[in-house]
C-alpha cells in the first residue's frame, strides 16, 4: 500500500473514533482486555456490563443462546459471569459494543453477514483450539471474533465503495481480500489493524487482524494467526462465510498455516479433519440463533426486571 493511501485510510479510521454510536463502555472494556486475566476483577466486569441497560439485556440474551450450551437460562449478569467465566462475558460485552459501534453509522448495511462469520469463526476457533490442546482457547475466541474488524472499518469508512466491493466479490465467488486489493488497493487486514492499534488491542490479537491472510509473515511465537486462518477457511467453506460461496478447492493440509500450527500444537497432525468438518455443520444453526439474539430488537426483554 502506498504512503498516500495509508495516510488517507488512517485519517478515515481516526474519524471513526468520534462515531456517536461508540458505546461508553468500549474504552474501559478494551483496557480490561489488555490486563492479564488473573488480575481481572469480577466486580468490574459486572459493573461494565450493567452500565448500559440495553447492553445488559443483549448480553444476557447472548449468554443464554444455544452456542454457549447452557442448560438453564441465566437471569443476572453476576450468574452469567460465574457460570460462563469472566473471559466469555467480556467477549459477549465486546460483541455488543461492536454491534452498537457498527450499526449507528450511515451505510453500515446488512452487518448480519459480518456477525455470522465473526461469531462463527470465533466458536469454530475455540473448538479447534480445544481439540488440538492449544493453551488458550479463550484467546483464540477473542482473536477470531476480531479478525475481520477491518470489514467493519471499511464499511464505515468507505460505505459506498465497499458495498460495491462486497457485491462484486459475491458475484464472482472470489475471496474478499482479492477484490479489496483490486478495487481499493488495500485490504481489511490493513484497515482492521489500524483500528486495532488505535484501540490498543493485545498485540497477539492485532497480529491476527493484520496477518490472517498472510500467515507466512506471522511472528513465529504467535500460532493464533495460523489457527484463525484455518478456522476462517473452514467457516468460509462450510456455510459461515461472507454470505456467498467461494468457488475453489482448498487443501488445508498443504497450507503453510497447517504446518505452522502443527509446530505449536502437535495434536493437529492426529486430528480427524474430515470428522471435524462434519461437526462444523452443527455450528451453523447455533450461530444463526446467536446472530438473531445479537440483532433482535430488545424492546420487550429489556423492560423485564434485571437483577445484577
Amino acid at each position, binding site marked *: 500500500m502506498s504512503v498516500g493511501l495509508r495516510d488517507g485510510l488512517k485519517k478515515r479510521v481516526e474519524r471513526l473514533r468520534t462515531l456517536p454510536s461508540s458505546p461508553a463502555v468500549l474504552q474501559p472494556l478494551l483496557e480490561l482486555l489488555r490486563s492479564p486475566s488473573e488480575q481481572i476483577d469480577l466486580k468490574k466486569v459486572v459493573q461494565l456490563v450493567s452500565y448500559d441497560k440495553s447492553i445488559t439485556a443483549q448480553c444476557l440474551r447472548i449468554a443464554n443462546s444455544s452456542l454457549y450450551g447452557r442448560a438453564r437460562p441465566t437471569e443476572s449478569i453476576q450468574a452469567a459471569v460465574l457460570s460462563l467465566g469472566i473471559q466469555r462475558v467480556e467477549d459477549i460485552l465486546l460483541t455488543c459494543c461492536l454491534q452498537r459501534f457498527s450499526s449507528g453509522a450511515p451505510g453500515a448495511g446488512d452487518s448480519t453477514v459480518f456477525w455470522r462469520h465473526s461469531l462463527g469463526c470465533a466458536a469454530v476457533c475455540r473448538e479447534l483450539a480445544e481439540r488440538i490442546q492449544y493453551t488458550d482457547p479463550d484467546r483464540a475466541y477473542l482473536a477470531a471474533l476480531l479478525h475481520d474488524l477491518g470489514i467493519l472499518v471499511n464499511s464505515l469508512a468507505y460505505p459506498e465503495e465497499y458495498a460495491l466491493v462486497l457485491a462484486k466479490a459475491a458475484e464472482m465467488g472470489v*475471496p474478499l481480500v482479492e477484490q479489496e486489493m483490486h478495487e481499493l488497493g488495500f485490504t481489511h487486514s490493513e484497515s482492521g489493524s489500524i483500528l486495532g492499534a488505535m484501540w490498543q488491542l493485545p498485540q497477539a490479537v492485532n497480529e491476527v487482524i493484520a496477518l490472517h491472510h498472510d500467515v507466512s509473515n506471522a511472528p513465529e511465537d504467535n500460532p493464533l494467526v495460523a489457527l484463525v486462518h484455518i478456522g476462517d*477457511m473452514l467457516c468460509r467453506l*462450510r456455510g459461515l462465510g461472507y454470505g456467498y*460461496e467461494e*468457488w475453489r478447492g482448498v487443501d488445508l493440509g*498443504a*497450507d503453510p498455516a497447517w504446518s505452522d500450527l502443527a509446530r505449536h500444537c502437535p495434536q493437529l497432525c492426529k486430528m480427524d479433519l*474430515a*470428522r471435524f468438518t462434519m461437526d462444523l455443520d452443527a455450528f451453523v444453526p447455533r450461530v444463526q440463533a446467536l446472530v438473531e439474539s445479537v440483532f433482535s430488537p430488545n424492546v420487550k426483554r429489556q423492560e423485564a426486571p434485571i437483577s445484577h
Partner: protein
Amino acid sequence: MPIEILKGPAVEASEKEDSRDPVYLKIRDLVYQSCGIYHSEEKLYLLISACKRCIAQSNGRASTGREYLALLTSPTRREVEMRELMNQITIGETCLFRSQAQLNALHNVILPELTAERSKIGLKKLRVWSAGCSTGEEPYTLAMFLLEEKEKLLRDWAFDIQATDLNDNSIETARAGVYGDYALRNTPEVFKRKYFLPAEGTRLQVRSEVKACITFTRLNLNDDSRLVFMKGMDLIFCCNVLIYFDLNSKRRVVQHFFSNLMPNGCFFLGQAESLFQVNDQFRLIHLPGTTVYRKSGPETAKARTP
C-alpha cells in the same frame, strides 16, 4: 383419536432425549470406527431411529439402546448386526441428484480445473467410474450432469461412465432405468423433461441417449484381478459402499482406487464418510459444503490460501 397424529411428535421428542444418551454416542463412535460413516450432532437422530428399527426387528435380542450396543459388540453377533444397521442407515438414501453440493463443486471447480489441465496435454476424454452404483441413480445423475456440461465446458470432449455393482438384480434394475417419485424427488423439472420419458403410472424412464453414456457391469470390489483393469479414471464415486467393508479390505480397495485415478483425479465418498486412517495418500480437499479426495499430481505446489 387418531393415534398416528400423537405418535409423530412424541417419537421426535424421545429421539431428541436419546441424542443426549451416552449409549448412542458410543454407537456413533463404533459405527464410525468400523464403517467410516459419521453422524455429526444434527444427524444423530438418523442413527438413533435406525438403531430403533434394528431393535424392533431383533426378535427380543435387544430392547434398549444399552442392550443393542452389547449386541453390536458381541463377538458372535456383531457382523450380522452391524450389516443390518448399515442397511437401515442407508435405506431410502439413494435417489437421483442426491448431493447437489458435489455437483456444484464439480461444475464450479473440479471440471474447470481438470479440463484446463488435460487440454494442455491434448487429452479430451473424461473417464468416470461409479463403483457400487446400486440401482443406477448415481451414474444416471452423472450422465445427465455431464451431458449438460457438453453444451458448455465439455464441448468437443468425450466421456464415458463405468457403473459397477456386486448385485445382479441391482444391475438389471439400473439398466432398465425406470424410477418412481421417491427416487426422483430431487430431480429438477427441466431434467425430467429433457432426459426422461413417461413410463407406467407416474414413473419415468431414462432416455436412451443418457443410457448410451453408461456401461453397466457386475463387479466385486474385492476382486483384485478385475480392479487392476479399471485404469485411467478421472473421477471415481464410491458412496455408502465402503461402509460394508472391514478395515483391511477397505484399505485395499481404496488403494486400488488411488492407482486407478489419473494424476489430479478425484475420489468422491458419501457425505458422511471419511478416509481417516484408511488411506493417507489422498489429499482431503475442502469445497463449499462438501469435501473430495484428490490424487495429487507430481507438480502440485504447496497451496497458499488467501
